[in-house]
């Protein structure tokens, strides 16, 4: 069990990272990556939703009739996202206001559905929870790195705290949308090059291909 958990961690964070390798789920969060705090809240939200919905669906998998499987999946995912939205509105009103529609868009994040289909269907609830959390971590690592670059160069600050001297001219492009595309591309490039140099010992698991086109 412990070794399996470790394999899952390594796969989800590095060898099969949802953003870098599968290019999944960036739609909902990329737009807020010019601010570290918002990115953190969003990615934690995605990680928690993935973990809990994978766990719930894995626990329920023997009860769900085949015909309504997709509907039940969407129902479970929406349930957790709405909970997150309610909690944010009550306890972090500022963040909730800034994130606006993006919290709701977690529902359509391809990673969540992908993990529910590819992993939770065939594994025990606890392991599915761990799989969801680690997928979320892999996602968080990449987006936080991108957000750090964008906030540092675009505003001269990290988590809203000014770190660059006042004489620094902010790079407006970093605040705007195109920079996010460039940074994701550069991150993918770097990761792929590093992975190619040191061929992965464990072959990527074939079942991990999530449904495309979401």
């Amino acid at each position, binding site marked *: 069990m412990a070794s399996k958990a470790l394999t899952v961690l390594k796969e989800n964070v590095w060898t099969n990272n949802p953003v870098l390798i599968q290019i999944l789920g960036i739609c909902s969060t990329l*737009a807020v990556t010019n601010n570290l705090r918002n990115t953190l809240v969003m990615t934690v939200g995605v990680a928690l939703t993935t973990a809990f919905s994978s766990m719930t669906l894995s626990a329920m998998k023997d009860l769900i009739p085949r015909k309504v499987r997709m509907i039940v999946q969407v129902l479970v995912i929406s349930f957790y996202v709405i909970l997150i939205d309610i909690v944010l509105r009550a306890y972090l009103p500022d963040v909730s206001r800034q994130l606006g529609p993006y919290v709701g868009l977690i529902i359509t994040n391809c990673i969540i559905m992908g993990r529910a289909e590819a992993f939770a269907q065939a594994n025990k609830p606890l392991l599915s929870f761990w799989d969801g959390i680690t997928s979320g971590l892999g996602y968080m690592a990449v987006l936080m790195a991108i957000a750090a670059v964008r906030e540092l160069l675009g505003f001269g600050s990290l988590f809203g705290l000014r770190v660059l001297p006042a004489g620094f001219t902010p790079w407006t492009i970093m605040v705007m949308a195109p920079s996010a*595309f460039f940074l994701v591309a550069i991150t993918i490039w770097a990761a792929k090059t590093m992975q190619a140099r040191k061929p992965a010992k464990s072959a990527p698991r074939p079942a991990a291909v999530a449904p495309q086109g979401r």
Partner: protein
Amino acid sequence: MPPLINPITLFFASVFTSNILLTNFLGMCSFISISKDWKSSFGLGMAVTFVMTITAAVSWAVLHLVLIPLGIEYLSFIVFIIVIAAVVQILEMVIDRSSPALYLSLGIFLPLITVNCAILGAILFIQIRSYSFIQTVSFGAGSGLGWWLAILLLSAIRERVDKNPVPAGLKGPGITLITIGFMAMAFTGFSGMIAVQ
């Protein structure tokens, strides 16, 4: 007080200056995987435009005639998802029965867009910005057309890019993202075109 934004301005702003894909990153997954091929891009773009316009109008009605009067706006996410799924399902049936030719070019893409983030995203924007019905329709249609335009342009560019030598690590998604980045920069050039009011 409803925001007094001219629907025509809203339409053009959502097609060009604030393209839902290039500035809000919505609908990226299918955008990257489908844009390899011009013909599929055309079909998917048409389907997105179609579904977005219709679901925007239907969701507006559901929001203002059901959710708000009953005070259950907190359930809106799930209701919108169901609305999108239902509209897609009905459209598929209608097109299948009425026009087999259209079904071939559009129908196969319909199931793909039930969970396209662009559709849900547009609807959530409409809810949060409390648009009127007219504004809703022009924003929905504009966003859909903007998405269509973006995927057509990208697929045309990709036909060339994919034939050219690219560093191994950048092949496929990497170079596509960089291309999209340049497109997004080009689209910000439209921003001088539209003045408020």
